[in-house]
């Protein structure tokens, strides 16, 4: 499962979901779904998010084994 720190970092930079979405060219809903881990972004979008949130990609997104 793909985990992320988008919500935490977005809060650090005081971005709303809409603002972050606008910066990376997606809708507010997409940011909300990414934060909840319900949508895995493409590598392009993940890189754009990493750039906007000034964080290395592997610190922003990482894979976690499914709990069994």
């Amino acid at each position, binding site marked *: 499962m793909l985990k992320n720190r988008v919500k935490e970092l977005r809060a650090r930079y005081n971005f709303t979901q809409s603002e972050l979405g606008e910066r990376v*060219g*997606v*809708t507010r*809903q*997409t940011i*909300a*779904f*990414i934060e*909840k881990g319900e*949508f895995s*972004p*493409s590598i392009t*979008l993940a890189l754009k998010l990493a750039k906007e949130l000034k964080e290395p990609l592997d610190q922003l997104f990482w894979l976690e084994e499914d709990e069994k």
Partner: protein
Amino acid sequence: MNIRMMYPFFNIIGCVIFLFIGWGFTRNDATISENTFDYTIHPVGIIAWLILVALCLVFSFLIKRYNKMNPDKQIKTFTMTPPEYIEEDEMYQYATMKATKKVYTFLIWALPAILLYIILPLPFSEYGVFFIITVIIIIQNLLYFFEMRKFKEL
């Protein structure tokens, strides 16, 4: 209300109205005598037709209002591409792909099943095809709606 999310319901309502129009206009009320041809349309057909016109007007109004409120993502009233496709960004493209895939999977089974139903010696009403196609359209639109609803606004 996001009109594009609700579009499958307009499809369903429109098709149910068409079912009544079809029924009202194709009843066997035509009588042909030597010199005259009388054809009676059942009132249900006429009423359904008027309801369809009213629905189209309401729909056009809703689209105009949506376009006024969303000038950057306007939708056309009549277009070959179904307006229910929401492809604003990669998540909605993914959602639309999932929903259309589900509908396609349904149709790939439903359409041959209709053919089988027609060729088998089963009780078959003259309005059977109208009815079955309407049911398929309803199921297809519900499948699409419920899949897209998973990606509704949080």
